């Protein structure tokens, strides 16, 4: 299992390549959309590159839960319902959603995902893979 620093360094390389950003821009607290300029298609690219860098599998929608954000069951008037928020928390335990929960407008969601969240996501995936004996 790589250390947190090793994970961060690899995540940094992935984000530098996928988003064409400079090394010093990829800080743990930087948001992917707001600070690093990621667009929706970038999340697909980032997910693929993370899979390759860490030898993990990331099913579609796991890194960026677009299926929840576009589901009428969970969205009303452009905002996530309490049930939607609950589902989001269940699916994204690596992200702190407290700030987003205050005004859960769907279009704001991407602004809350940070580099640190991606590192935690990878860490959990690696731990799960290790527990399953696949790494």
């Amino acid at each position, binding site marked *: 299992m790589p250390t947190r620093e090793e994970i961060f360094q690899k995540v940094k390389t992935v984000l530098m*390549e*996928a*988003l*064409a950003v400079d090394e010093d821009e990829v800080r743990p607290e930087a948001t992917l959309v707001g600070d690093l300029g990621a*667009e929706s*298609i*970038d999340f*697909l*690219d980032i997910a*693929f*590159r993370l*899979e*390759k860098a860490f030898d993990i599998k990331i099913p*579609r929608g796991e890194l960026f839960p677009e299926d929840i954000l576009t589901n009428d069951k969970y969205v009303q008037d452009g905002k996530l319902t309490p049930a939607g928020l609950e589902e989001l928390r269940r699916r994204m335990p690596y992200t702190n959603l407290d700030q987003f929960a205050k005004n859960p407008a769907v279009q704001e969601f991407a602004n809350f995902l940070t580099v640190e969240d991606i590192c935690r996501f990878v860490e959990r995936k690696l731990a799960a893979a290790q527990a399953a004996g696949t790494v």
Partner: protein
Amino acid sequence: MRWCWIDRFIEFEAGRSAKAVKVISLAEDYVHDYLPGYPLVPRCFVIEGLAQTAGLLVSQQFDFRLNVILAKIPRIVFFHEAFPGDVLTYVARAEFIRRDGALTSTQCLRGEELLAEGQIFFAIFEAGQQMPLFRRADFLHQLRMLRLFEVGRGPDGTPLPLPAELTEPV
């Protein structure tokens, strides 16, 4: 006008890599339009050639059934310009090809000289039933003009078969 920015494939290894050539002629209008009096190939058309080479490499993996769309260019660097008289070789290598997206690494060469290199990312969609991007017969004809099936080889080295999807009667 046909939106052909490669002339023909010279190598095509299914799922792995492809090479196509593009011959630049002074007779082509676009070389005169970008900088009047100084004919050259605008870089966007080099990128288009790289994207067509790489895009068909990706598309073949789905028997040319799906729409493979240039979604983004994470990185591209140009070292030299291309001019009339040049024979450009576009090289594409698949980094990964998945059902919803593909990343390719590409190079543009003039002989041994590297003119440009970068990555191209494609999004992949189910072809629209109502408004297909191409008529199947036209698309098949275009692939044949590019000689893709003359040089195309599968992973085991055998010639690529014509895709059934494109040869079936409509």
